C-alpha cells in the first residue's frame, strides 16, 4: 500500500480522471474503482474523499444527481464541462511530474 503522504496531492487528479472515464459515480463506487485499478494499493479514505468531492462541487467542477434507492439516497457525481477540461490538464500535468521525478531520482519508469 502506498503511503497517504504520497497520495495527498493526487487525490483530486484521481477523482477527476476516474469520473472522466466512468461518467457518473457515487462515493463508494469511486473508492472501489480506485482500489480495483490499483490492485488494492491505493485505498481512498472516506475522510479525504468526501471533502474533496464537496470542494470540487463547490468550485463548479462537479455536479450531482440524487437517486432514491429504497430507504437510501444515493448521490452520483459527474463532471461539468470545466471539470472535464481540468481532468485532462491534471492528468497531463501529472505525467510531466512523473517524468521530471524520474530524471531527478535517476530511475526509469515502467
Amino acid at each position, binding site marked *: 500500500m502506498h503511503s497517504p503522504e504520497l497520495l495527498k496531492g493526487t487525490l483530486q487528479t484521481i477523482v477527476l480522471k476516474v469520473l472522466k472515464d466512468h461518467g457518473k459515480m457515487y462515493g463508494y463506487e469511486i473508492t472501489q474503482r480506485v482500489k480495483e485499478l490499483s490492485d488494492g494499493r491505493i485505498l481512498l479514505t472516506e475522510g479525504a474523499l468526501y471533502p474533496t468531492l*464537496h470542494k470540487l462541487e463547490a468550485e463548479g467542477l462537479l455536479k450531482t444527481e440524487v437517486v432514491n434507492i429504497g430507504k437510501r439516497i444515493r448521490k452520483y457525481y459527474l463532471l461539468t464541462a470545466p471539470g472535464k477540461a481540468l481532468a485532462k490538464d491534471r492528468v497531463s500535468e501529472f505525467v510531466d511530474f512523473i517524468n521530471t521525478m524520474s530524471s531527478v531520482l535517476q530511475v526509469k519508469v515502467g
Partner: protein
Amino acid sequence: MTLQSEHIDFIIKDLHRRGLLLDGFKDEVVDHVCSAIEGEMARGERFMDAYQKVISSFGGNDGLQQTQDLTIQYENKKLKVMIQNYFTIAFRNLKKQRFYTAINIAGLAVGVASCLIIVLFVMNELSYDKHWSDNDRLFRAQSEIKFGDNHLIMAVTPGPLAETLMKDFPEVESAARFWNYDTYIFKHGDETFKEPNSVFADSNIFRIFDMHFVAGDPHTALKEPNSMVITQKIAEKYFPGQNALGQSITSNSNKSWKITGIVDNAPKNGHFHFNFMLSLVSVEYNKDPNWLSNNFNTYVKLRKGADAKALEAKFPTMIDTYAGPQAKAALGADFTMEKFRAAGNKIEFTLIPVTDIHLKSDRMAEMEANSDITYVYIFSIIAGFILIVACINFMNLSTARSSNRAKEVGIRKVMGSMRSHLVRQFLTESVLLSIFSFLIAIGLAWMAVPLFNELALKELSIPFQSPVFWLLIGGCALITGVLAGLYPSFFLSAFRPVNVLKGNLALGTKSGVVRGALVVFQFWISIVLVVGTIAVNRQLNYIQNTKIGFNKDQIIVIRDAYVLGDQLQSFKEEVEKDTRIISGTISAFLPVSNTARSDNTHWPEGKAPTDENMVSIQVWRVDYDYVKTLGMKIIQGRDFSKEFLSDSSGVILNQAAVKMFGYQDDPIGKKISTFAESIIDGTKKLKTSTIVGVVEDFNFESLRQNIGPLALFLEKSSGRISFRFEAKNTQEVIKTIESQWKKLGPGQPFDYSFLDEDFGNMYSAEQRLGRIFTVFAVLAIIIACLGLFALTAFTAEQRTKEIGIRKVLGASVSGIVVLLSKEFGKLILIAFILAAPVAWYGIDKWLESYQYKTEIGVFVYLLAGLAAFGIAWLTMSFQSIKAALANPIKSLRSE
C-alpha cells in the same frame, strides 16, 4: 446481497448518534456505509462486524466529525451559499436598524430622484437639433456689425448671402433662408385663426433640414409662389379626416396659399418650431439685393469634409466684393472698406453649428429664445452636489454606527472571517440599500416629472422602455452602493478583534475627523446653494421692481389690431368713451420684448453724415397718446400735441439718444436728418425732424441690456392697441373692450395681454431658474439635515450614560442641549466660513451678465449662514432635548 430495512434504520440512527447531522452529507454517508457493508457481507462477514469495520475506515467518531467539518467548510465556499448568507445578514441588520435604514433610504432616494430629473433635463437640453441628419455639416450664418457707437450682434444676415454662398463657394452644398418668423392670420371657411410659428422659406430649405414629408415632394414643395408646407397637426386642424394636400387656405390679405407638402410635427427639441412654411418666392422682398440690411436667417449645409473655419476665412473678401460698393454708394465716394475697418468698424459673417444654437447663441433676432449652456453646467453641478450630500449621509451613518457593529466584526474575525469577507458583507448591505433607494427614486421621479415639467416648461418623461436607461440605472445603483459602502466597509473591517472585544475601542462617539469633514462638506454645499438661491431671487425682485421709466401696471394690450383696418381709430374712440378707460394708444412699438422694433441711422441736420456723427437709433412709430398712456415722463420740451401741426415732422428723443447726438445744452428745436425710403418709388430722400421733447430713459429690452438711443415719431403703426384702465373691475373692462371689438371686427380673434405680464415674461427664464434653483436647494438642505438628524440621534444614544451621570451630578437640561449641539455647531460654522467666498465668486460671475444688478450684501451671507445653522439646530435640538430630558434612572439602571 442487499441490506434489510431494519439494518438501514439502525445505521441511520447510529450515525446520527455519532454526530452526523449535515443535510445531504448524511444521506451520502449512509449510502456509502450501506454499500461498503454489502461488499463486506458478500465476503462472508456478519452485519455488526462489517459495520464496525466500515466505521473504523472512516476513522471512528472523530474521523466522521472531521470529515463532516471539512465538508461544511468546503460547502461554505460555494458562491451561492455565501451570497445567500450575505443577503440574510444584510436584511437582518437593516431590519434591526429600522430608523437609520429608513433615513438612509429616504435620503438617497430623494437625492437620486432629483439627480435623475436633472439628468433628464440636461440630456434634453443637449439633444437640441441633433435629429437632423448630417447635423455636423449644418451651420447658421450670422452677422456682427460695428459702426461708430453701434454694435449689433445678430442671428440674421443679408438676403443675397445664401445665393452668393452657393454660387461662389464650392464647399457649400446648399444654403437657404427663413424670413419673417411671426404670427399670421389665416381664414378657413367662416373662421379666422391666428397662427404663430409661421415663416417664409426658400424651396431648398428641405435639403438642409430633412423634415419628413408625410405627403408632397420636398424637392418641389416651395418652388411656386403662394405654395406652403404645413405640419400634420395643422392639416388635422383645418382639414380633419381629409387629404389636405392640394387644398388651399386664405391668408388675412386674401391671398390663397396652396398646400404642397405636409411634414411631421416639429420636434420639441429644435431651435425653431414651424407650423406653416410659406414659399419665399411669393414675396418680392426675397430678391432684396441689399448687403447692408440683415433680415434673413441663412442656413448652410457644407459638403462632406469641408471645413467651416476655412470657409469663414474667405468671408471678408466676399464682403469687400459685394457689400463694399453698396456702402460706398450710401456713404459717399471717399468710402473704402480699408478706411472703414481702420476706424475700428466691422462687418463680419460667421458660422455657428446648428446644434450649438440652442445652448450657445444669444443674439438679436433669434427665432426663439434660446437656453444657455450655463444652466446646463449649473444644473449638472447641483445634481452632483445633491448626490454627494446623499452619499455622505450614507457614509456617515454607517461609520457612526460602527461602534455598535465593532463587536460583531470582532466576533466574526475570531470565528475566522477574512477581511475580504467582511468587506463583501458590508458592501452587500450598502448595495442592497442603494438598489432599494434607486427603485424608490424611480417611483419618486415618476411622480415628480410632471411637476418639474410645469416648472421648467419642458416635456420630459422617464424612458421606461429604453433598456439603456435600466442598464444605466442599474449601473449607477451598483456604483453608488459600492462607493457609498467602500469607506465604511474598509473602516469597519480594519478593526482589530483584540481591541474591539476587550472594549478598548470607543468608536462612534467622538471619532471621526473624516465624519466631521463630511458634515462640513455637506453644509458647505447647502450654504452655497442657499446663498445662490437668495441671490437669484433678489436679482429677480430687483429687476421687477426697479425703476423702469414707464408704468407697466393697469395696461391691457390687444394684439393684431390691424385686422380692424379703417375701423381701428373709431374702435379706440368708442372704448375711450368708457369711464373706466383712462386713455388708449395705437402703436405696435411697446417697451417689452417681442413687439415691433426698427432702427435707422440719423445725424444732426446740416452736417454731412460721417462715421462720427451718425447714430443708429430705435425708430418707434407712435400716436399722440403714447407717452401719456404708458406713463412715461417728459423731462424737457413737451409731448406730441394736436395743437401743433408741425409735430408730424417732430421727434421725441430719449436721454440716451440726446447724449449720443452730443447735445450739451438744450436739444429742443434742434433737427436731425435721415434717409427715408419713399414707399411710392423706392427712391431715398432726406427726411429731417425737429426735436420737440426729451423723454426720460425707459427700459425697452431686457434689463440685461443697457438702454439704447430711441426716437418717437408721429406715424401710423397699427400692430397693437393699448389702453390704460382704472384699477378695479378688470374683468368688466375686458368684457366691454371685447364687445366693442366684436362689433367692429366680427369674427376677428380678440387676443389680449397685460403689459405687466408681458414685462414679467421677459424674465421668465430667470424666474424659472430661480424656482428650480430654490426647489433643489431646499432638497439638498433637507437631505443634509436628514443626515444630521440621524447623526445627533446616534450621538445622543451613545452618550446616554454620560448624560445620565451629568444629570445626576447636577447638569441642567439647557447645558446638555448645548453640549450635544456644540460639536455639530462648530462644523457648520466651519462650513459657513468655507462656503462664503465660493458663493460670492459664483454670484459675482452670474451677475456680470446683467446691466442692472442688485447688491448682494454681507447680510445675505449671514442670513444663509444663520438659516443653515438654524435648520441644523432645530434638527439637532429635537434629539438633544429628548436626550437631555430623559430620566437618568432609566439610562443608568440598565445593564
